[in-house]
């Protein structure tokens, strides 16, 4: 399990037992932003790979 997955699970455990609604909302916001960051990193890495393998560079 990677760090992100573990973190999301731990936050979910806290979310499930949380009694204060406001705290639960922030825990959910933390999960959402970690997922959004993960997606952004994945997309940027994809963009780097795509640029490296671009046919424009085949002639170089």
């Amino acid at each position, binding site marked *: 399990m990677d760090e992100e997955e573990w973190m999301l699970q*731990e936050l979910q455990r806290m979310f499930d037992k949380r009694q204060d609604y406001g705290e639960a909302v922030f825990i959910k916001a933390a999960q959402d932003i970690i997922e959004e960051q993960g997606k952004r*990193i994945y997309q940027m*890495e994809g963009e780097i790979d795509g640029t490296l393998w671009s046919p424009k560079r085949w002639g170089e």
Partner: protein
Amino acid sequence: MKTLLIVSHPDILESSSQQFFLRSVKENHDMTIHHLEGAYPDYRIDIEKEQALLKQHDRILFQFPFYWYSSPPLIKHWQDVVLEDGFAYGERGKMLSGKEFGLILMIGISAREYQAGGTELFSINELTKPFQAMAHKTGMIYLKPFTIYQFAYMEEEQKMEVLIKYWQMLTMENDPSLASREKWLIAQLEKMLQNASDPHDANIYEYAISLIKENRNTIDGLKVVLDQMQQH
């Protein structure tokens, strides 16, 4: 940043959406909640007091249910008497210049109807032109409106998502980028960390904060690489 939330609703206790949002906000040094109908049930507005409140805050928000494409009557009356020549505009005074102004609208009809071809025909941006003109005339920076459509039909998860955006409208700097939302959330999580009584919970908050920061470093690093690649 100090926020003044001016709420207008003739029957606020009966409104589940208003109650949901207002109960979630605590007044503090940086946050004032001002319910007009509660303060002035007889419509006799204390103009000096209102102008002093405006001066003390940096972000002015109007929150109201969208009635017949406009606001409830008291907030209109408030504008008529409080935003007077010499205070809000004109040669002798532009006391609101440089402050931020935004609308928080509770709307009973679906978002998709507010466009050409929809039952309401016009967009919220078109229907709220008088407020945009007011912000313009008084030199205030108009924020993107925060619109809540059909709150009663929202699922629990949607309500939570909308509540975060509401809190951001009240307290986050006017920049919706991922970096700015991270910064805002970290500040909130740090407060929760300070108040956490369970050491396990405190650990998780700490891990979450450091992971968000670590991810930000990764994103910034990748951005540098991409920028360099695009230059070549």
